């Protein structure tokens, strides 16, 4: 396992190694060429979005949903979901009424 790349501070700098690490976390097998392009572009974007730090907001509560609703429940009544055939209809591979997938947690370098 490679060492964790040194994190950059929240000032906009993002290294190529960091982009590679994030891509691994996000399960994206980016190419070397993409890493070069993305690192540059993300650096520019991060520089722009870091502006949010300019706003004094210590006592401001965060908003995750602008039109907030609470405790949206429905009666606990059964209703039909997808049947097995429907659920498997888009499967890349299916067998015996199940999704057929490659082994989980294979050996990673």
């Amino acid at each position: 396992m490679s060492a964790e790349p040194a994190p950059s501070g929240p000032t906009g700098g993002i290294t190529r190694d960091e982009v590679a690490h994030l891509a691994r976390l996000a399960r994206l097998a980016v190419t070397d060429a993409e890493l070069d392009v993305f690192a540059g572009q993300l650096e520019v974007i991060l520089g722009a979005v870091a502006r949010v730090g300019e706003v004094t907001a210590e006592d401001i509560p965060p908003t995750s949903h602008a039109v907030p609703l609470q405790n949206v429940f429905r009666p606990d009544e059964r209703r039909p979901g997808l049947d097995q055939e429907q659920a498997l209809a888009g499967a890349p591979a299916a067998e015996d009424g199940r999704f057929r997938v490659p082994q989980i947690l294979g050996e990673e370098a």
Partner: protein
Amino acid sequence: MSATDLTRLSAADLAGKIHSREISAVEVAQAHLDRIAAVDDTVHAFLHVAGEAALASAAMVDERLAAGTAPASPLAGVPLALKDVFTTVDMPTTAGSKILEGWRPPYDATVTARLRAAGITILGKTNMDEFAMGSSTEYSAYGPTRNPWDTNRVPGGSGGGSAAALAAFEAPLAIGTDTGGSIRQPAAFTGTVGVKPTYGGVSRYGLIACASSLDQGGPCARTVLDAALLHEVIGGWDDRDSTSIDKPVPSVVDAARIGAAGDLSGLRVGVVRELGGEGYQPGVRSSYEDALRQLEKLGAELVEVSCPHFEYGLAAYYLILPSEVSSNLARFDAMRYGLRVDVGASAEEVMAATREAGFGPEAKRRIILGTYALSSGYYDAYYGQAQKVRTLISRDFAAAFEQVDVLVSPTTPTTAFPIGDKVDDPLAMYLNDLATIPTNLAGTAALSVPSGLADGLPVGLQVMAPALGEAVMYRVGAAYEAARNAEDGGPVISRVPEVSA
């Protein structure tokens, strides 16, 4: 009426003629399918055209009318183009991405179901930036859509297909989604009308998620009244969307009709100081100033208001959106649906190879950005801080709406730009959304209505309303539209050139 004439009519007019049985829904559907066949090789608004199904649906409407049954809705029999981000059991749904190429959903979206129940003829699915991320439709995995006003230019995005279909007269109605401006900006670029309802106003069940706290489906049309009619079909509470608002749909059709009478006396219109000044194309600014004068002539009182945190909107948005996207797009893992690239022995390797092959560059950028913004050590400074800015923007709106009934601005800083101009410059692309983003962050409502042309290209006026305040927004939009049309001798869209190959 000739087929060409049918494609130039508004949805309201078509509905009237179909319901009085002057023409059949099948004739109308066929006329639009013929139009699509004639121009869509050039425009590329559609990813899928459902000819047989559309004609069958139209035939059923005709049968029911012939039997004396009342029309299923005021829009029964009228054709519509549906953004390919809503699930449809009988048509592929790709969200503009290779990762869902050919995917057939096992269920209809609520919006889809409501359109069908209303007797609307769904002509097909329209092109879009992949997973609704983009402002030009150039990030579609299936090729760009071209702006009918100038086929070397973009129609806007992410809903460029829906807007272009309207402007090319391929459909009188369309459905889009708006997360940061993806309905309104294409409307501005194509001389059409586009509405972002209040967050929670239109069900997101079956809407392939981009950013769950920002996404909102909405009506697109060539007139404000048509948009209002469509709004009333698709809007309203849905018990399958826990973010949907359990209140009646605002009476937007009534509001549009009242507005068209042209009296805005007593209405206070807020001109947002932070939107519409520097950085906006001169032709856009002069069209906007003209619109402001028009609103005053209609009796509105213009009030300058300041929304100081709007200038942080873009930064907050491009942190919140990628964060939510990185989470929402994690479901595309090659296991249960969509593309699978069988490279590697483990599930993780297959996932990584599949997502690499199936996602385009903008999707990847935003996933990586979101993963970064949410990661430990950066969460507070980026995502956490962006959420606080979001609160401040909501407060800016609330304060403004205490002084005025609606806010206005130009919809976009520029008119439609040439294809290829910004596709390699993400930040330049993001600037398209300057004026539209604050509304999505606050969850309030807004629409874009054509305000004229600048160097032959359409300009849009944005009207913003408080949450659930759509009625006043439609009233202002309709009043302004009527006044604009009267002054120009016809709607802006009537000046669109014939689509050139």
